[in-house]
């Protein structure tokens, strides 16, 4: 029953992405409205999960979450091709992890090669964001299931 495993994984990833995306959007809005994120309960959670306030990035996390959840609902209602959503969800998650890894490389070069003033306090921890750690989860799962995504047409 490998589809069941995939469904559970997609459920977990979907909820995770949507949750993180929501937090990111809310803190993003807070920042725009009040200028800073203050020290609310929300920002404490965001800080603990390395979520920077950013409305658009949050929307994208929610979108990836929706792709996973769409897959779950299809598989759940018996459509085997719902696997496609899990596959694409993983791809998207990898693409955005890649984007932020490259962005972090840029920051790293700023801090250590150019010694820019704005980056004096930059450390590798600052580069960590949900796109990256969620991407690592996706990567591990993908490597494990690599061969099993091709489907016989019904």
């Amino acid at each position, binding site marked *: 029953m490998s589809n069941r495993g995939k469904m559970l994984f997609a459920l977990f990833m979907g909820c995770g992405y949507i949750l993180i995306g929501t937090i990111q959007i809310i803190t993003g809005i807070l920042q725009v409205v009040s200028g800073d994120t203050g020290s609310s309960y929300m920002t404490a959670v965001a800080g603990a999960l390395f979520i920077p306030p950013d409305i658009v990035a949050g929307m994208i996390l929610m979108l990836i979450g929706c792709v996973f959840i769409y897959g779950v609902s299809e598989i759940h209602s018996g459509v085997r*091709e719902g696997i*496609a959503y899990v*596959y*694409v969800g993983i791809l998207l998650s990898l693409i955005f992890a890649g*984007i932020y890894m490259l*962005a972090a490389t840029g920051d790293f070069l700023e801090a250590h090669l150019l010694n820019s003033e704005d980056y004096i306090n930059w450390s590798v921890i600052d580069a960590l964001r949900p796109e990256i750690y969620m991407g690592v989860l996706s990567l591990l799962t993908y490597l494990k299931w690599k061969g099993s995504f091709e489907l016989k*047409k019904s």
Partner: protein
Amino acid sequence: MENTKIRVALAGNPNVGKTTLFNAITGSRQHVGNWPGVTVEKKTGIRSYRGYDIEVTDLPGTYSLTAYSLDEIVARDYIIEEKPDIVIQIIDASNLERNLYLTTQLMELETEMIIALNMCDLALERGDKLYIDRMQEILAAPIVQTVASRDIGINELLDRVIEQKYNDKYHGREIGYGDIIESKVLEIEKILLTDPELSKRYPLRWMSIKLLEGDRNVRTKVGKSHVSAAINELLASIDQEEYEADIADKRYVAINAIFPQMCTRCNVRMTKSDMIDRVLTNKYLGIPIFLALMWGAFELTFAFATPFTDMIERIFLWLAVNVTSRLEPEWLASLIGDGIIGGVGAVLTFVPNIFILFFLLSLLEGSGYLARAAFIMDRLMYKIGMHGKSFIPLLMGFGCNVPAIMATRSIEDEKDRLITILVVPFVSCGARLPIYILLAGAFFGRQAGTVVFFMYVLGIVVAVISAKLLRSTIVKGKPAPFIMEMPPYRVPTLRTSIVHMWDNGAMYIKKAGTLILIGVVIIWLLASFPWGIEYGSEESYVGMMGHFFAPLLEPLGFDWKMTVALVFGLVAKEIVVASMGVLYGAGDSPEALTASLLADPAVTALSALSLMVFSLLYMPCVATLGVIKKETGSWKWTAFALAYGIAVAWIMAFFVYQGGKLLGY
């Protein structure tokens, strides 16, 4: 001894790899893209091979040899008028059935033909079986299997070309169209034979069939001959539409008969491509995913380029400080420091962004995703009054508007084409990117990528709304219906992407060293005179010019320096950044352009945003205007494009600036 020359034409359906093969044979670097309709003009190149000069011509892709659109006429006329020694038809092996339709028509042209069965890798990967020997027999033409994107089969193909040159007896096959049609074909052939001029130049059987199909292009060819009256009489006596449909039918019947003998399709697996498609064409998720990926591309363009742009900026700053302090006389130091380093340097700073963006766009293009996006948007576009095929020129506009406007040649309907030509300039080209990067980077910090993304979206939205407006006012009518063909997903080749990136980057750099340099010197001169004034002050000629135009642009939040930059930007949009470099850099101690912009009280985040919007939309650059004139053949439409662009830009920037002020920014 002179090499023997062999003239070869590459024909085939769109998107089968003709240009890739052309590049592989001749070593050139013509544009290759994973969507139909990339090549619209024929291109020629030469390859010396085993003592022969093989002259290869890459033709636009066509599904058939009717003459409905400009690119089809280009391809067909080349084959029948210029009579190449050999025509190579490139067939997409993974799509054999559809490609055969063109084969049946090429055979009627009675030219020596070779078939290159390209994309064999894809067919084999999918598990199809191809029976090459049988295929050779049926089509009566040599067949070579190739994978053009990996240079496989090229030499064998060239060997066949040389062999075929001496194997000169034409022995192609033809399709029988049934007694009724065939008897008419014979009748027409007999009439045509009485004109030796025609019968020497064109294959008569082909001509007769085309006449029965009602081909206008062929009719004009016959029109000048003394047989035309007899032909017209004969054609008037038959129901042409019925014949046309019948002939097409017979071709399909023939294909259905021969196809199963050539190939067995393996079609049981849902491939990764199918899976991706299922999601990306999803009703709800398709468009958001497209937007998300584009956003990612801009985010990356920004974030990854920053250290490199910083590095270049520091180099120019260092140059400005060190070179100019040692230069005598003072005017020369100012020309080099304030003018050239300030202006051209400002433009060159953004080379890394240009490179990255073009690399990413090329990946999206090569993977087939951009064309899929067109498919997702097709229905939406139709409702808006735009032809589905218009989306491809719009996408090509991201690079440069000039080739994008030329790409509209694949649109058959004149009205559809005109509308597309008029709205393409709103699509943000590479030259506008530096303006956004400079201003967004200075005023919007971490959100810069998002701001740039929204500029691109705004460009597309304005283009689409303008199309709707034009449709319902000046160019009335419904768009011609159209079924978009979806190119398959392919892993984009690194080579193509790098070439694409390099060509666009090099063009940008070259422009900086020529056109922009000249512009910068002119602006510097105007900023330094009349004699005795302070450089770049309001008393200088640019100052006067700026103040002259300023009242027009003041409601948009622009000071006189921005005004000057925009006026010079009429020539090429990179000059907007260059002239800001020349004008804002002016001061006692040179500092980075970003810093001087931030320090200038006349420039706020809001006016920067308004400037970005205005630069995006206002008047196409001179080169684009030139190509609009050429393609529409009308000064009226060219003037319209110019006036309309400026009006839209002014209105949009006005709303941004005044609206922003109302909101308290």
